[in-house]
């Protein structure tokens, strides 16, 4: 098997204090990996380290066999894009301006967009159904629209891997399902590898090829949704009392 994106003995954390240790996974192009687990289990820290937003404490992540730390910032930005939980509040920027910020690794020294760049920005906005709001001010749109535009920004980076930290939080079901469908489509049609964290287990089951369960600084397991979404694994992961699992999944 040709695994394009790998983590080996990866340990992540802050100031030499490990948060999650010994993470191992291997993904092919176009696969979707979802991190689930209780609040505070370290999912965000794992995602940040995978995107090199913070330094790994041990081990490394490999893209096409190259360790993450070997990449220059611009090269990395052409391969890995992120959608974070923080909500930027830029002044006087339209949704199109925000999406266009994703073209950064491709534009010249002054960041001037070419006509081809603009076309890519419009394509990205069309992909996430946000072309109609492109001239609206970014600070005045709803949470659902905001998440669409931030995803468009990531698509503009033409990444091989997209890392998303809880992209469906605060979204109503329509927007959430739409975002996940877009991610699935990117994975299938463009071969983009998608790594995300989710709170809603029903979404995780729907979107993932692989699911990683994170709890108490450890990776409990990493497996297919069929293997993970069993009473045993989920009850252990979230410390569910007897009977809750059946209720949750309507069994």
């Amino acid at each position, binding site marked *: 098997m040709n695994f394009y994106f790998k983590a080996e003995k990866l340990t992540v954390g802050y100031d030499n204090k490990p948060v999650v240790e010994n993470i191992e996974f291997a993904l092919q192009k176009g696969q979707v990996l979802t991190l689930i687990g209780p609040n505070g289990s370290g999912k965000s820290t794992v995602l940040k380290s995978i995107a090199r937003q913070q330094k790994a404490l041990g081990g490394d992540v490999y893209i096409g066999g190259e360790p993450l730390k070997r990449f220059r910032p611009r090269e990395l930005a052409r391969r890995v894009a992120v959608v974070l939980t923080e909500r*930027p509040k830029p002044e*006087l920027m339209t949704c199109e301006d925000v999406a266009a910020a994703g073209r950064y690794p491709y534009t010249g020294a002054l*960041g001037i967009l070419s006509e081809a760049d603009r076309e890519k920005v419009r394509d990205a906005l069309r992909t996430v159904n946000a072309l109609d709001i492109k*001239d609206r001010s970014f600070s005045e749109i709803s949470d659902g629209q905001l998440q669409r535009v931030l995803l468009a920004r990531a698509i503009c980076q033409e990444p091989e891997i997209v890392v998303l930290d809880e992209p469906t939080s605060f979204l109503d079901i329509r927007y959430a399902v739409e975002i996940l469908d877009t991610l699935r489509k990117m994975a299938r049609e463009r071969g983009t590898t998608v790594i995300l964290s989710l709170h809603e287990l029903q979404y995780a089951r729907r979107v993932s090829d692989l699911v990683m369960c994170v709890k108490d600084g450890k990776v409990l397991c990493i497996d297919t949704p069929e293997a993970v979404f069993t009473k045993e694994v989920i009850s252990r992961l979230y410390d569910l009392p007897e009977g809750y699992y059946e209720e949750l999944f309507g069994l």
Partner: protein
Amino acid sequence: MRQQQQVTRRTRYIIVAIALLLLFAALVALNIGIGSVNISLGEIVSNLFSGSTNTPESDILHKVRLPRLFAGAILGGALALSGFLLQTFFNNPIAGPYVLGISSGAKLIVALVMVFVLSRGGTVSSATMIIAAFAGAMLSMGFVMLIARKVKRASVLIVSGVMIGYICSAITDFVVTFASDESIVNLHNWSQGSFSGTSWDDVGVMALVVFLASTLVFLLSKPIGAYQLGESYAQSVGVNIKAFRVALVLLSSVLCACVTAFAGPISFVGIAVPHLIKAFTKTAKPLLIIPLCFLGGAVFCLGCDLIARTAYAPVEMSVSSVSSLIGAPVVIYILAGKARK
């Protein structure tokens, strides 16, 4: 509709740019033409084209008004850019070299150096002044950055900056008061903020420093733009955050130091100008904003200097008094606007 939006944004920008250029030209003409000594238009024109002769009118033009004009334009632009960089750095619309105490820090060290050197009968070169001012600016900036690291609230940052400014000004006052008589005369005007007494040599040095720094700022347009979405997103598209932040601190301090070394602290230009430019052009794109900020700063300071020189002629007010009167209400307006949201 889409085309129209594009056109209106662009048209707006062009109109603002042309208006600023016209204002700039008008203020240049007024600043040359108006002063405590009346010089006729004919004399001015013939003097400007024939070069320096030895008449008193020619001396006033060439040794007083023209260097002062250049100082106002160059240093005004520098202040506006310094403010723009600090607003980017702290992600705070009312950050500026004056409110954060950076101008006052620069003033303090320059005053110390001047008193020390003058009391030993030495003279202070403009390069020494700039270096001293830069050291002072970095000192205040260091304090402000320490506070910013501990406290995330924007208002706390500003209040701390204002307090640092007061402390530095108070120490400067002590130094000036206890200094020997002749140095006080030199120091007093300068420590209030004034473009008077600029020589051509000064103009040469400030032009060089400000030109280099401003060019670098312009070349940073791209990462500054990326930084508007926050540090994490900027990093994710390939901005080297550490290097970028160091560049912002150094450039804003150099620009502010240069202004303070030659003209003393001048208030509120750094906040008011970038804000007004963004409000008029309705864009925050650094590539577009940076040149207009410089031009706007020049216009603002030339206007303030004109008022400072002529309102109670022959007595001069400090430029800083005039710029406060115009700039401070802009700050209040920004704060009120933020509170409403």
